[in-house]
């Protein structure tokens, strides 16, 4: 407390005053020395009163400010629990609007033990309502000194109401959200899952976490659950039949890059996501990178044909094996003669493929694989994307093995997108799991000419009509494709028993619409395959069965495969009359 200077009443002045007024102890009316002291006291009391008044005025001003001027901004007032729930995480749906993931607003029950009047009574009533609650544990919780204990998470609206009706003080609800996946494990690796706090942890839930949170509009995936279901059923059947470790399946629209089905088996149930084994969590379609074998001859051939230096009927020496360091490059099926490029593709000749790349050179091979996205991680919208393993340095011997799909490991997703670009007219479309806006142009870049692409279609078709993929024949749907059987690396070398079989199928080959890829990991041959565990026996039939079922679903009209038009379009020796997908 400070005062204003009142020098005329200061102590120094007072001393002077004393000289005139003899000291007398006051009795009766104020007299002598009491008068100046009183005068000074009164003056200073006015100052004190003024300070007090200022304080009071500040309080009054603040009262008006808080109570009237700020009234509109009240947000924290306690209010009765609202029954209108609003989910804060957007739904995920497939391309036809089928619900794949949604949020359910739930109430979670907690207690403030300090407010519980009668613990035994509360325990009795709660355990009657929720027989799965442990009595002893609940009693201990409610008797604790804490101010907050969870009793039960995610009640149903009915349970919520029942707890209300107990009328127990000290119980309260926290609004929570529960993520529901109506399709169960069908799309486990695509949609993914969320953690307890409802944040995406795997799949689209994770990569689109920010969009989904606070989003209202559902996220439309490119997935078609019907095709996903077909793919899963067939792939699982094959895995079961051949006691395989697992598998991957992809269905892709070759003209847009949209992924209609993406599957990795084994998978998991995103709803009950405790203790998912790492193997089931692993996405073989996008995260796993594998040496995929002969399917790489697609790129070897496309590169050679597109260069203009090598033609379909150019022949190569496939009689003599090629020595590569300690290894000898041999053919699975020896033809004992020189083979044309088409025959090399048809019979999947390793030696022939090496001869081709020897003519093309390393930089051309490398540039081509770069163009079709095989040397960089797939742009697919999942967090689980594996980086391809490419040789570094890229030596001659690497270029040889890469010609037939060894010494380079890519994900099935990369393979599908790259293979699609060779038969769709020559455009690489980045694969996507999100439905494309039909109003926007499809992104992509040219990798080969339409003419080369036309030749590639004939090669694809040849493999099915008279090559390694005859089991992919589906009457009316004009299937083409390429097989790949890769021995798995066991220890430091390649085993001969364990392999990985892949088939990339495309239909209808005369005007490609869909690519269907199946990969079966470590199948075991049985009597039905006559002891063979190659792609032609394992992966090809899966794709054939898938195409047979999906063809009618996606509305592709069956055609007579022996019609002159089809032969004209796809026979290897027929002269192309017009080129589908070619633009001047």
């Amino acid at each position: 407390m400070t005062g204003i200077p009142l020098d005329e009443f200061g102590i120094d002045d007072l001393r002077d005053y004393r000289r005139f007024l003899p000291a007398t102890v006051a009795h009766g009316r104020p007299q002598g020395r009491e008068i100046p002291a009183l005068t000074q006291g009164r003056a200073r009391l006015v100052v004190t009163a003024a300070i007090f008044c200022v304080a009071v005025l500040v309080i009054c001003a603040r009262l008006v400010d808080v109570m009237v001027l700020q009234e509109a901004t009240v947000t924290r007032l306690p209010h009765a629990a609202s029954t209108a729930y609003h989910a804060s995480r957007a739904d995920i749906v497939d391309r036809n609007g089928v619900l794949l993931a949604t949020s359910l607003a739930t109430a979670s029950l907690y207690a403030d033990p300090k407010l519980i009047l009668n613990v035994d009574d509360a325990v009795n009533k709660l355990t009657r309502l929720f027989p799965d609650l442990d009595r002893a544990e609940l009693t201990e919780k409610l008797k604790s000194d804490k101010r907050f204990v969870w009793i039960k998470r995610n009640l149903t609206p009915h349970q919520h109401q029942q707890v209300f009706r107990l009328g127990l003080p000290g119980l309260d609800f926290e609004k929570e959200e529960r993520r529901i996946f109506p399709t169960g494990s069908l799309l486990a690796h695509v949609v993914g899952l969320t953690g307890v706090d409802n944040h995406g942890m795997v799949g689209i839930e994770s990569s689109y976490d920010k969009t989904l949170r606070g989003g209202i509009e559902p996220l439309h995936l490119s997935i078609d659950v019907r095709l996903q279901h077909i793919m899963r059923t067939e792939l699982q059947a094959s895995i079961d039949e051949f006691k395989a470790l697992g598998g991957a399946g992809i269905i892709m629209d070759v003209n847009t890059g949209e992924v209609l089905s993406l599957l990795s088996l084994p998978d998991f149930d995103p709803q009950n996501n405790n203790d998912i084994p790492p193997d089931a969590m692993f996405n073989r379609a996008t995260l796993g990178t594998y040496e995929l074998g002969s399917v790489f001859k697609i790129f070897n051939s496309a590169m050679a044909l597109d260069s203009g230096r090598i033609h379909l009927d150019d022949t190569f020496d496939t009689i003599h094996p090629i020595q590569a360091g300690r290894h000898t490059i041999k053919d699975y099926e020896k033809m004992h003669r020189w083979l044309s490029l088409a025959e090399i593709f048809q019979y999947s000749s390793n030696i022939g493929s090496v001869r081709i790349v020897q003519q093309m050179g390393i930089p051309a091979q490398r540039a081509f694989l770069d163009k079709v996205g095989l040397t960089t991680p797939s742009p697919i919208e999942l967090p689980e994307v594996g980086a391809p393993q490419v040789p570094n340095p890229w030596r001659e011997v690497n270029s040889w093995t890469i010609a037939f799909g060894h010494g380079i490991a890519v994900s099935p997703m990369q393979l599908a997108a790259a293979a699609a670009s060779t038969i769709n007219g020559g455009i690489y479309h980045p694969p996507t799991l999100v439905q494309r806006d039909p109003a926007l142009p499809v992104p992509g870049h040219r990798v080969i000419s339409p003419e080369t692409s036309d030749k590639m279609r004939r090669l694809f078709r040849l493999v099915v009509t008279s090559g390694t993929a005859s089991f992919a024949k589906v009457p009316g749907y004009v299937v083409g494709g390429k097989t790949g059987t890769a021995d798995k690396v066991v220890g430091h070398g390649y085993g001969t028993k364990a392999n990985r079989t892949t088939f990339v199928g495309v239909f209808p080959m005369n005007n490609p619409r869909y690519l269907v890829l199946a990969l079966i990991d470590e199948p075991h041959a049985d009597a039905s395959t006559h002891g063979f565990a190659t792609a032609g026996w394992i992966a090809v039939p899966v794709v054939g069965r898938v195409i047979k079922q999906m063809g009618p679903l996606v509305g592709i009209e069956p055609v007579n495969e022996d019609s002159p038009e089809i032969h004209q379009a796809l026979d290897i020796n027929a002269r192309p009359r017009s080129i589908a997908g070619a633009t001047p």
Partner: protein
Amino acid sequence: MNFARTDHSILGRWWWTIDRWTLLALAVLSITGTLLIAAASPAVAVHLGLDNFFFVEHHVMMLIPAGALTIGISLLSPRGVRRVALVMMLVTLPLVAATLVVGFEIKGATRWIHVPGMSIQPSEFIKPCFAVVAAWLFARQRMVEGFPGYIIASLLYLLTAALLLMQPDLGMTFVVSAVFFAQFFLAGLNIVLVAVMGMLGISGLIGAYFIFPHVQSRIDRFLDPEAGDNYQVQHSLDAFMNGGLWGRGPGQGTVKMTLPDAHADFIFAVAGEEMGLLFCLALVGLFTFIVLRGFSRVSRDDSLFVLLAGSGLLIQFGLQAVINMASSLHLMPTKGMTLPFISYGGSSLLALGIGMGMMLALTRKRFGSAEDA
């Protein structure tokens, strides 16, 4: 009550000389306080596992002796007031010291001692007594040559402040100090010394910030609301906002349910929520009325002792009200301080009753000397 003008009995003289307006204002405050406690305390009582009306009953039970003390003490003459204050001072100072030894701890401070039937906080009683004793010492210094009133008062102040700080009761120390220096100022302390004292006070507050962790935390939280737990103040402001101009109506408050100290330190917020802005302004007006009317009456008195003692008691009363209201409005860091006659709190109420009784006694109309009336 009615007394004939010629009634010269003690009560008759009291009735005609007492400041009846202030008495009425105090009565209104007490009744308002009881009603507000009735509104605010059941939620708190249930919280603490007590009977719904525990606080209301206890408050009313304390109000009766407090009122009796106010009236009883207001019958005294200024000399009687001085003697009562001196005696109480001599009794309570050792009691305050005793709390350090035999006191029991509530919320981290040892301020209470058990007396059969109840527990009391002796330091509350120091406040009015010290104000009166200091006033007497100051007045005597000015009136009796050679009487070392300033020095004795200062020593007494240092002793009291030290005892209070050891409790530790910083709020009380602050009030006692503020009242003491205000009285010193009124008594004619050299203006240079006033400035020095002011500096000392500020450095004392800054020192408290660094010495006492809980003071530091409170001030930090006041300066930076994001820094930590401002639960009470935040809810207090919510209550005021919820009240608006006219309030939610008696008993209709909802934010009060979540205010742990609704019945004591934050009762003003309950008043705000249920009765609205106009009522709060009226309440502030009532406090202001009592203080300013008191000031006016003591400044008209011819005795320096009456002026100093009366204004000391009024400053204490007003300061406590201002601090309480300012804390609930987040104008200053929260400081455990009751709103006089409104808040629940047994010892505080009794002590205030004594203080206001003394103030009423000093502001009675007197004829002749204050010392022998």
